[in-house]
């Protein structure tokens, strides 16, 4: 099966950035996800929502890139929320213990509601 080339889109919603990775997060092209988040962090954004609705699969390279984003946010006391995750993604994050270092929501709107409520 031919995988979709990885790409990233994003938008600003209030004081939170919503990131939309698209495709299999499994090689160096996934660095664009780190760069996209880094751009928002450098603008002072501390709340990032990653909507995984178009990324079903991830491998160790993708996990490493996600760790980088989590580390960058941790350094500025920011928050990362992950939404719309496939079962595979959620199981993987749970098994690795990543879940404890992020907020997980079923859908993007829930995450934005949580962030706008100022609970972080």
């Amino acid at each position, binding site marked *: 099966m031919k995988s979709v080339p990885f790409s990233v889109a994003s938008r600003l919603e209030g004081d939170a950035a919503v990131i939309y990775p698209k495709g299999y997060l*499994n*090689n*160096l092209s996934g660095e664009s996800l780190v760069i996209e988040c880094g751009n928002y962090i450098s603008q002072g954004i501390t709340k990032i929502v990653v909507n995984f609705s178009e990324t079903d699969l991830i*491998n*160790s*390279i*993708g*996990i*490493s*890139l996600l*760790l*980088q984003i989590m*580390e960058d946010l941790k350094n500025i006391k920011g928050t990362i929320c992950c939404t719309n995750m496939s079962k595979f993604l959620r*199981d*993987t994050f749970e*098994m*690795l*213990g*990543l879940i*404890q*270092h992020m907020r997980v929501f079923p859908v993007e709107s829930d995450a934005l509601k949580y962030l706008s409520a100022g609970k972080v």
Partner: protein
Amino acid sequence: MSTELKKALYNISALVDLGQAITAEDAFQEKIQSALYVITGTFLANKGAILFYDKSTGRLNTLIQKGFDRAELDRVKPQDLISLGKNEPCLIGYDPVPAVAGAEILTPLWVRDEFIGVLLLSGKLNAGSYTLEELELISVIANQIAIVLNNHTLFTDLSDKLEENRRLYEEMRHIYHGTLQAFAAAIDAKDAYTQNHSHRVAKYSAAIARELGWNEHDIEGIYVAGYLHDVGKLAISNDLLNKATPFTPAEYEEIRKHSTLSHNITSKIKFPWKNVHDMVWHHHERLDGRGYPEALAEDSLSDGVRILTLADSFDAMTSQRPYRKRMDVQSAISELKKCLQSQFDNKIMLVFCRVLEKEITGELPEPDILPHLDSDSDLSIISSMLEAIIQELSAP
């Protein structure tokens, strides 16, 4: 499925990821970058580094790193690591493992008995200790990384040697051509009337061969033959070569020896090009078998010989001789045409005319023949003449 099983599957798939990363057609740096991501993603480490041992300097150079202080990595000493186990992960703080750049775990990389570098990890996300399974996995990964680095070193060494050989070959070629030109200058200096004749014959011959579709190696061969075809004249007396009156039969016989002398001289040289000896020896042969020194004819004459013969004759005709004036270009072309089939080859003549025509029309931006011809020549007349010959010789 239990968490342990899921973790085991994740680790196996990480090895697959590593295999894909290091066997991809990417550049070396990208492979190593991918490999480091696989490692840090597998062990959830926010710090990772691969250092490569440079035998020539005795230092460890950072190939790729994430999260470490580069200055601290620069201070890692290979002698502190060489005594540790080969591709065995060592937990920092346990004697005799030295503290290195703030790493929690280090793995010296080895291929057979060769120290290759070191893999460093630190900053495990969940701050737990490394399990036995994880240490075994690090050892497997370290073996693979060491092989990748070693292969890269071998490839780089080979590339360097290849580059050095290429450079030496180019130097040799320059020296070779310089020597040939010095030879040619010595030949031409003997005969005041044929200065630069060898150079021009080399240029004309190469131009015809190129138009004929020869490859660059063979073109270089005929160029060399052009330079050397008259080297035998070095053994002919100056007085005879520069004689102002026509040769007597005996003198002509003496002059005719030069092509065999050229062959005898050049036969001592092992040329990297084919047929140089043949072209030098037979450049005065004719299609009708009335040439010299072997009176060869038709099928016995290679294309190279036929090209050199025509180029030599054309330059001889358009150059001043002690016993006659130089011929104008039109007359020389007419003379060549008159001698087709008896002396010169139709196909070679056709190609020669095409080259000259292309040089006149500017189709060949770096002309080889035109710059050496009489500057007073009327190019439009020559061009018309060439067109007519081309049409005639191209007819089925």
